[in-house]
Structures are given as C-alpha cells and as structure tokens.
C-alpha cells in the first residue's frame, strides 16, 4: 500500500530524469520518443492515482517516509489527481502534435532543447499541483516560469525574444512577490506546511489581521501576474502569439492554470473560506475577473492575427476562473476548477487548429482565412466545435460552466454578474462567428477554392480530434466530475 502513495513523486521524478537524459540522445527522432514515453508513463501513473483516490479518498505523502512533517509533503486530493491526469493527457496530445509541426517552426538544433523544456515544464506543473508545502510550491513555480519562458524563446525570432524577455521580467516580479508572501507567512506562523499554517492561523489570526491581509495581497498579485489576471496580463498576447504553435497551445491551455489552482489552495486550504471572505480582497478578485472576461473578449474582437485573438480569448477565460474564485463560495472554486479543465482541452485544440491554418495558408491574419472551411474542412470543423464550446452552445463544457456560475451568482443573489457572464459569452460569439462564417459560406469567399485542396495529414489531426472528443465527454459527464471535485473544497 505504501507504494501507491508514493506514485505522485515517482511521476515527477520520471519526468525530471527523462529531461536530464535527453541531452545525451543524438538524433531528434529519439528525443521525441523519449519525451512522449516519459509523458505517457506518468499519465498511466496519474490514472492509477485517480482510481486510488476514487476508492479510498485523499492521502498525504511525506517525502522521506518520515511520519513527522519535516520534509516536503504532497497532498493528493480528488481535484489534484483529476487536474494532474487531464493536464498530462493534454500535454501528451500537444507533444504528439508537435512531432510534425515543430520541425518547420524552430531550427534543427533547438528541437532537443524544446522537448527538454516540455518535460521539465510538465514536471514542475505536477509539482505545483501536488505540493502541500508553500516554499516547495515556490521552487516548482520558478522552474515552471523558466521552462515556459524557455519554450517561448525557442523560436528565436526578434519579436519572440522581446516577448519572452517581457514575460520573464513580469514573472520574476511575480515570483519575487510570492517569495515575499511566503516570507511573511513564515514570519508569523513559523510553518511552511499548508495544513500546519492553517491550524496556526486559526488559533490567533486576530493579532496578525494586517499581516494576513498583506500576505493574501502579495500572493494574489504574484500568482495573478503568472496566470494573466486582468490588469497584469499585458505580457500574454505577445508571448502566446509569437511562440511556436505547440508551445503556445501548452502555454495557454496548461501553464496558466496551476498558478490559479495554487492561489485556490492558498486561499481556501491555507487560510480557509470564512476568514478569506472577511477581507474584501475577494471582491477585488471578482471585479478583476469580470473586467478580464469583458476586456478579453472586447479586445479579441478587434484582433486581426488569429493567435493574438485566441490569446486574448484565453485572458477572458482566465477571467472566468478568477470570477469563480472571486465568488468566495466553495462551489464557486469547484466551478473554477471545472472551467480550468474544460478550457484547457478546448483552448489547446483551438491553438493547434490555428497553427495548422497558419502553416497551410502562410498568413496569420484572419482575412486570409476566407473560404478555408472549404479547403481544409476537417480542421475548420474541429475549430468550429471548439468555438461552439467557447460561445456556450448547450452540451459543451463552456455552457455548463456558464450555467453553474450563473446559478451560483443567483444563490449569492448578485444578479448583475449574470449579465457579465452572458455578455462575455455573446462577445465570444461576435469574434468567433465571422471566422467560421467566412470559412464556410459566401460566394466570393469560396470563389477559386477547390474542395480539400489544403488537405492536412491525419496524424496532425488525430490529437485535435481526441481533444475535441475529450471536450464533449467533459461536457457530458460534468455532473460526476463536479460531484467528484466539490466535497474536497468544502
């Protein structure tokens, strides 16, 4: 039984070791194989963890087998296990997609570096999700920041480097703030382990009212920068649009989420729901979430470059997640987690489709995609399905998270917020529909476009199709996912 509990650590170690082994492999083909095998193996382990958690609930894992909590502790609850397996699932699919597209986008000698970064990034993401120790979380956040900046800069064009630089500087500021937050927490609780801090805070939080407030503010703004909260998002559009397709898919879909989840862990497990609601930081997160939703969609409407458009739409979706957190109720956090999963699957599919479109047409601006639905029908159809989930057509996960958010808003009787939720989904429609319509319909759009002329090889389409299928399944089984998640956050 002991072995099962140590699986999460094994997972992270596999990914790290595979990353360290890669420099010794000579040919690029083998690099890819090594990377994907490591990822699939850890995915299998994650599925085992999920089953284990399903059967006998959450469990702790103390590195070093010492029952006293001196070493680093990992906490694996239903939310963590689910996030872990789903993120890995998406990373594997993006990696398979990158097998074929990465060669054309980055130079020969950089491919090895790219896959090392991918493995390191996934390892650090799992670390951030699992850790129950905030300093360990900080270390994994730093590793994630550096490696994500790495997969951005791997393209090495002028703009790319500038964007990466901007991203790196902003994330260093963020991590500086997080470190200061950790220092503050340590200073008045003396612990680094989340549960111990929680007990310490519960005992005598009245004296540290002001300090507690400042730590929450530090953590929010630090993690906010990293996960593109509204005012601190300026780095995201440049970074995601100039990065290679695979990495921008990874960035938008996966990298932003663990930081937001870390914020949830700090807010609800470290400090506790009732205490957090006393500070009005929650309302600030809520308002920033709403502004993010509206601003993201509004900005996306005026975008010409498709990658920037999808980047802005991920700002909007992050706005949804912060809106969920900002509601301050446990069910709100559960919906935020569900939206993370839903958005991860949809956004990666959308980015990969847009990558294919750019590769086939050679242009990045939307106006050149007229009549594309006729030329590459399957990719465009997948893109449309992804867009439908974003817009909120029933059955898709987008609609379900909007539904639950609104129901939660009514329970907290803030009816105006529903207007924001619906307005932002309508705005999504405003900027996704022109692309779809111009792709499929209109005489002059389809004037000299033969059917299936820009055919995309099936092996590039398989990952996207798998993701869309996962999306639909997520939509279908939303009820049991939420039942699985919500008890833990209460």
């Amino acid at each position, binding site marked *: 039984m002991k072995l099962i509990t140590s699986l999460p650590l094994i997972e992270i170690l596999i990914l790290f070791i595979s990353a360290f082994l890669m420099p010794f492999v000579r040919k690029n083909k083998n690099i890819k194989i090594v990377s994907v095998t490591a990822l699939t193996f850890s995915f299998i382990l994650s599925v085992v963890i999920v089953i284990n958690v399903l059967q006998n609930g959450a469990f702790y894992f103390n590195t070093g087998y010492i029952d006293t909590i001196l070493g680093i502790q990992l906490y694996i609850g239903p939310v963590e296990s689910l996030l872990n397996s789903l993120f890995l699932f998406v990373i594997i699919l993006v990696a398979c997609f990158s097998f074929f597209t990465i060669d054309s986008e980055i130079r020969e000698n950089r491919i090895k570096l790219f896959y090392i970064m991918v493995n390191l990034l996934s390892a650090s993401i799992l670390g951030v999700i699992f850790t129950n120790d905030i*300093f360990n979380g*900080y*270390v994994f956040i*730093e590793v994630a920041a*550096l490696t994500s*900046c*790495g997969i951005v*800069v791997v393209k*090495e*064009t*002028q*703009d790319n*480097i*500038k964007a*990466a*630089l901007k991203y*790196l*500087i902003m994330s*260093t*500021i963020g*991590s*500086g703030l997080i*470190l*200061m937050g950790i*220092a503050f927490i*340590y*200073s008045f609780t003396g612990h*680094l382990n989340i549960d111990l801090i929680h007990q310490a805070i519960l005992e005598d939080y009245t004296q540290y009212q002001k300090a507690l407030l400042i730590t929450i503010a530090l953590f929010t703004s630090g993690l906010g920068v990293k996960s593109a909260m509204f005012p601190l998002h300026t780095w995201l559009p440049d970074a995601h649009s100039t990065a290679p397709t695979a990495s921008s898919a990874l960035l938008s879909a996966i990298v932003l989420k663990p930081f937001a989840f870390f914020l949830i862990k700090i807010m609800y497990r470290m400090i506790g729901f009732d205490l957090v609601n006393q500070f009005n930081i929650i309302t600030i997160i809520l308002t920033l979430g709403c502004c993010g939703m509206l601003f993201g969609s509004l900005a996306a409407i*005026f975008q*010409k*470059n498709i990658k*920037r458009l999808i980047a802005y739409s991920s700002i909007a979706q992050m706005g949804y997640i912060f809106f969920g957190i900002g509601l301050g109720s446990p069910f709100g956090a559960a919906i935020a987690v569900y939206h993370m999963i839903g958005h991860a699957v949809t956004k990666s599919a959308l980015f990969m489709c847009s990558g294919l479109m750019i590769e086939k047409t050679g*242009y*990045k*601006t939307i106006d050149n995609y007229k009549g594309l639905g006729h030329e590459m029908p399957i990719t465009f159809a997948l893109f449309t399905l992804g867009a439908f989930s974003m817009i909120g057509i029933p059955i898709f996960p987008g609609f379900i998270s909007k539904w639950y958010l609104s129901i939660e808003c009514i329970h907290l009787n803030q009816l105006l917020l529903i207007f924001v939720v619906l307005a932002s989904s309508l705005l999504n429609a405003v900027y996704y529909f022109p692309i779809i319509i111009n792709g499929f319909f209109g005489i002059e759009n389809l004037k000299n476009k033969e059917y299936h002329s820009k055919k995309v090889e099936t092996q590039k389409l398989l990952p996207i199709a798998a993701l869309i299928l996962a999306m639909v399944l997520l939509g279908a089984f939303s009820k049991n996912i939420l039942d699985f998640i919500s008890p833990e956050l209460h």
Partner: protein
Amino acid sequence: MALFHNYYDSASIVLFGIGLATLMLNKNLIKKIIGMNIMDTSVFLFLVSKGYIAGRNAPIITDRYEGVTAYVNPIPSALILTGIVVAVSVTAFLLALTIKLYETYGTVDLEEILKVKGDDHEVNNQSSLD
C-alpha cells in the same frame, strides 16, 4: 514605533522597494537585472532575519555539535540557499537573452529595441489599426 526596533524588516522592505523601482523604471536591460537581484536579496534578508535568535551563532557545525540551543533557526537559511539558486538561474537566463538581443540590435536600451520593427513580416501589420 515598530519601525525602530526591527531594523531588519524595515531594511528589507526599503531594499525591496529600491529593487522594484530600478527593475521598472530603467530602460537599460542590465540595470533591470541588477534591480531584480536587489529585490531578491531583500527578500532573503527578510527571511534570514526571521530565523535569527540573539546570542546564538550560525547553524554551521565547525568541529563539534554544541546542541540545538547554540544555533540560530536553520530552516530560513536553508530556504535562502534554494532561493539564491533560483535567483542565480533566472539572472543567467536574463543575461543570455540580453546578449542575444545585443547581438541583433547592438543596443541594450529596451526602448530602442522595441521601437525597431521585428523581422518576421506579420509583426508590422499587427500594430496598425487596419
């Protein structure tokens, strides 16, 4: 007044402010990196000062182990070690990127770099409102 008797906290807060300001306000990349380092060191100072217990010496065992009470609280100092490693790696990465930029643009002034349009073609039609 709290400010007067815990010098270390106030010193680290001031240092943090200076680091943050230099990071933000300067155009020169190198100055930004220096600013970032100042910011990190200020945090480390703050953390170490939390672990200090007056009248005890550093948690380094020279020849023999003098018991727990002789030493200062070792955990913050351990944390700072990893913190320093992280800061160093980030600085290294930043410097590498700055060198790359310097090779292409010949200047380290971020403003100059950003004003020159990037090389890949689709960048220029991005910014104008067409």
